[in-house]
């Protein structure tokens, strides 16, 4: 490490330009550590108190062949001095660690955007793997961008001269060099990164120091070389006052489940089986045993939900977590759960489908599976989270409904929410809902025979009588049950009656959930209706449309079944309903069927969040069409 480079923590000397918002994307080989780099840059950005949103994007393979196009891994971060809603349509800054990364990402860079390329990686072999005939560094490919050609790998190795590490190991620190350079460029605080590196490599301090050195070298390179004429600063965002932290959707969801256990006073049980992008919920929950949380990694998805249903029978707050292909396997057991009327949270972190589809990409195409994917008339409530941090509250709401109505509940998240990060105001624990009132295990009432299907008249819920309770011994099962007694019944009228009771119970929840709130221009003609993770992009697009002076209203559904009580009334107010979805029109279908409104879909099934620009244009076109 050369002594002549100033420490990054010293005040850097270049002129500083203020920006209100920046989108930056790190792209490189799966082996280049781009996810780590992006995540760390995100943390530094949180330290800088910007608002932010991230979009990790990586291949389904653990590590595809080095340098290949399918092997490219990317991490996009949007940060700003105001509240933002999406990870950004297109990067303003692209860091491309190799030719394949350049090839697959350049098209997204805004015109005139900033491009940093690692020239060391532009070898003949790598160019070939990226299907470049000639080097894009030498031809006109990069015209129209602000290009910084940096020999990142060799500079990293150079900076680590004094370290007694194999060259390969030194080269691996090149992502920290890039991180240092970007940290300089956007005036990110550095102390956190250094601490983080020390903690991460606490077992190999040499490696920790090497990475810190690479990081500092990157910073210093930015600071000292001529090619970077100035640096940028994005002032802290003016978020509502409170204590903030950074959170991803899977983490928030896990915390929501733990919180629901605490709030209901019940032990929490998760039966799961790993599947992308849901596994992290299983991982996270298994860390928190001291919250009275039990996790079972079962032999498959069916056993996972089976164990959860067994735990629910035994009196736990139980959940199972999976993604679409896993839900496909759980539907028979969900049917059993709704037939025996026990509380159960079924979490689907959606990914690209059909079939195995695109395991690491986002999509919201499992709504109708949640709604109708079972044999028989088998209604279940459905709740969807809107943002990473909202996964926390959505989980608590799912638990509330499951417990109160003794029913399986679908909780929908997706790959974008799961892995995307945002600043999150840490909730005041005392402000969270008390769920103990929803539990009330049945207790023997002297002399009277226990009736396992005698419903609570206000909720339609049946008693939850758990093993271990003397006098309430009873049997449940998936055959049709006689009303009240719960005995097996093949009686035609009873079956009709029970079918209608099950339906009415779920429909009745509409009275117990918040009404739709319209974000909007009262006199708009067009209502944009969304659900799930499109919350950010839709809000952003609507903002854009409003900036053009047009009027537009917006609602976002957290409850998909039943719909809030005022849904019909809200929909009737507008001449046109536009429903943007990352599927071929699933909420559209439900709205059309239930309310006979001519909902128009905006359907992009690209495995990525919407770009707000395109969505804004679509909304604009609708507004213009209706008003003309």
């Amino acid at each position: 490490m050369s002594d002549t480079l100033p420490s990054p923590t010293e005040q850097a000397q270049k002129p500083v330009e203020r920006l209100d918002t920046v989108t930056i994307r790190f792209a490189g080989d799966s082996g280049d550590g781009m996810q780590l780099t992006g995540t760390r840059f995100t943390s530094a950005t949180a330290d800088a108190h910007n608002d932010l949103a991230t979009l990790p994007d990586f291949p389904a393979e653990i590590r595809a062949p080095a340098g290949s196009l399918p092997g490219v891994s990317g991490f996009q971060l949007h940060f700003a001095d105001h509240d933002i809603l999406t990870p950004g349509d297109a990067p303003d800054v692209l860091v491309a660690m190799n030719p394949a990364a350049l090839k697959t990402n350049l098209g997204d860079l805004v015109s005139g955007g900033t491009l940093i390329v690692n020239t060391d990686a532009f070898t003949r072999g790598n160019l070939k793997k990226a299907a470049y005939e000639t080097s894009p560094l030498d031809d006109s490919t990069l015209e129209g961008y602000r290009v910084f050609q940096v020999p990142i790998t060799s500079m990293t190795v150079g900076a680590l001269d004094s370290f007694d590490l194999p060259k390969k190991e030194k080269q691996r620190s090149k992502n920290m060099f890039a991180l240092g350079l970007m940290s300089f460029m956007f005036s990110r605080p550095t102390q956190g990164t250094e601490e983080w590196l020390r903690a991460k490599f606490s077992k190999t301090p040499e490696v920790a120091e090497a990475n810190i050195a690479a990081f500092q070298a990157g910073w210093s390179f930015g600071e000292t070389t001529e090619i970077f004429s100035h640096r940028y600063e994005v002032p802290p965002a003016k978020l509502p006052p409170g204590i903030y932290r950074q959170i991803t959707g899977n983490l928030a969801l896990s915390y929501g489940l733990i919180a629901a256990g605490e709030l209901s006073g019940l032990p929490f049980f998760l039966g799961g089986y790993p599947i992308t992008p849901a596994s992290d919920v299983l991982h996270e929950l298994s860390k928190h045993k001291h919250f009275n949380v039990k996790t079972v990694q079962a032999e498959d998805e069916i056993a996972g939900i089976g164990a959860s249903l067994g735990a629910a029978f035994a009196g736990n707050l139980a959940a199972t977590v999976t993604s679409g292909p896993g839900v496909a396997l759980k539907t028979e057991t969900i049917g059993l759960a709704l037939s025996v009327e026990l509380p159960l949270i079924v979490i689907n972190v959606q990914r690209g489908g059909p079939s195995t589809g695109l395991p690491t990409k986002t999509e919201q195409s499992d709504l109708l599976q949640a709604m109708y994917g079972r044999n028989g008339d088998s209604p279940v409530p459905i709740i969807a989270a809107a943002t990473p941090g909202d996964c926390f509250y959505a989980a608590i709401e799912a638990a509330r409904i499951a417990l109160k109505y003794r029913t399986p509940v679908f909780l929908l998240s997706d790959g974008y929410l799961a892995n995307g990060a945002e600043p999150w105001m840490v909730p005041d624990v005392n402000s969270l809902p008390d769920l103990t009132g929803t539990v009330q295990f049945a207790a023997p009432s002297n002399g009277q025979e226990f009736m396992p299907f005698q419903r609570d008249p206000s909720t339609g819920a049946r008693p939850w009588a758990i093993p271990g309770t003397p006098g309430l011994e009873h049997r449940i099962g998936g055959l049709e049950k006689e009303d009240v007694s719960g005995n097996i019944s093949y009686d035609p009228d009873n079956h009709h009656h029970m079918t209608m009771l099950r339906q009415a119970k779920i429909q009745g929840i509409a009275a117990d959930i918040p009404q739709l709130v319209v974000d909007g221009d009262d006199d708009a003609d067009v209502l944009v209706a969304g659900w799930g993770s499109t919350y950010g992009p839709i809000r952003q697009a609507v903002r854009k449309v409003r900036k053009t002076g047009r009027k537009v209203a917006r609602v976002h559904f957290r409850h998909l079944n039943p719909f809030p009580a005022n849904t019909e009334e809200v929909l009737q107010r507008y001449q046109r309903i536009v429903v943007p979805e990352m599927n071929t029109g699933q909420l559209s279908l439900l709205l059309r069927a239930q309310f006979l409104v001519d909902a128009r879909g905006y359907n992009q099934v690209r495995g990525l969040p919407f770009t707000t620009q395109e969505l804004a244009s679509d909304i604009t076109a609708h507004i213009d069409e209706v008003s003309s």
Partner: protein
Amino acid sequence: MTTITEAGGPELPQYTKKDFTSDQEVRWCPGCGDYAILANVQSMMPDLGARREDVVFVSGIGCSSRFPYYMDTYGFHSIHGRAPAIATGVATANPDLKVFVITGDGDGLSIGGNHLIHALRRNANLTIILFNNQIYGLTKGQYSPTSEVGKITKSTPFGSLDHPFNPVSVALGAEASFVARSIDTERDHLREMIEAAAAHEGASFIEVYQNCNIFNDGAFEVVKDQPEENQIRLVHGEQIRFGADGEKALLMSAKGAMSIVAAADHDDDELMVHDAHREDPTLAFALSRVALSPTSPTPIGIFRQINRPVYDDQVQAQLDADVAQRGEGDLATLLAGKETWEVTT
């Protein structure tokens, strides 16, 4: 039932069979072997050493799986093949419960084979009783994974082709810590097996030969009708002898196979003494191969019974240890995490 202690002491009520008999009409065919097993289990229950409210019967789907309805305990008649998974959840959520699984050769070995073998290796505290009638009863007579090759059934009018499972071999291959076999009509033996299985800590597995008199009548008649000649009773620590005068015995060959010999032809110490407690399951496995199907002398009794950590207890222990080490979780601390910042107005 009458309670033998005053007002709610911790002692067990003195139950009778009737306390474990539900008010539901039993809906099996007259003559079905399931009746005998039910009566046996009901009359064994008062001696189980558990409170009635702590007993849970979980089953799948099949004639046999109707069992829980007839027990006046907690019961869950679930879906086809999934009982071991559901029961694992019950036991893991509350390790104080006494959880039984009732399944059939179709339910437990066809659709539910995977849950069964995983339950056995995982070793949660479950007592699994598999009613093997070598047929699908409830769906009116198709061959099952334990049916003999060449079986003519509704779905195999030209004779079945698949080689059957030997349930005891399957269980042993799946690391089961307790494996036994009995017969519906052998009242005392069956009771002894169920008692031992219920007392075993961890997952126990009993295959019960059960006659389906409607679709597979007489499948076990060789073993039932000539008990002395065809039931090889395994008793831990005792020589394995059978025949009217105990004149036959088992001998292990050099390569592990068992052969039936005349006891008189061999020195006493050559003859096999049963050892169910061996860590190594090979002996038990060898015994399971003495009869591939119950059409010749067939071992019944406990093949294997070893101690192994119990899954649900261990899950609880990890939880308790974590509480002991970190204290009960504090939600506010968890939510705040390590890195926060404050935004002020």
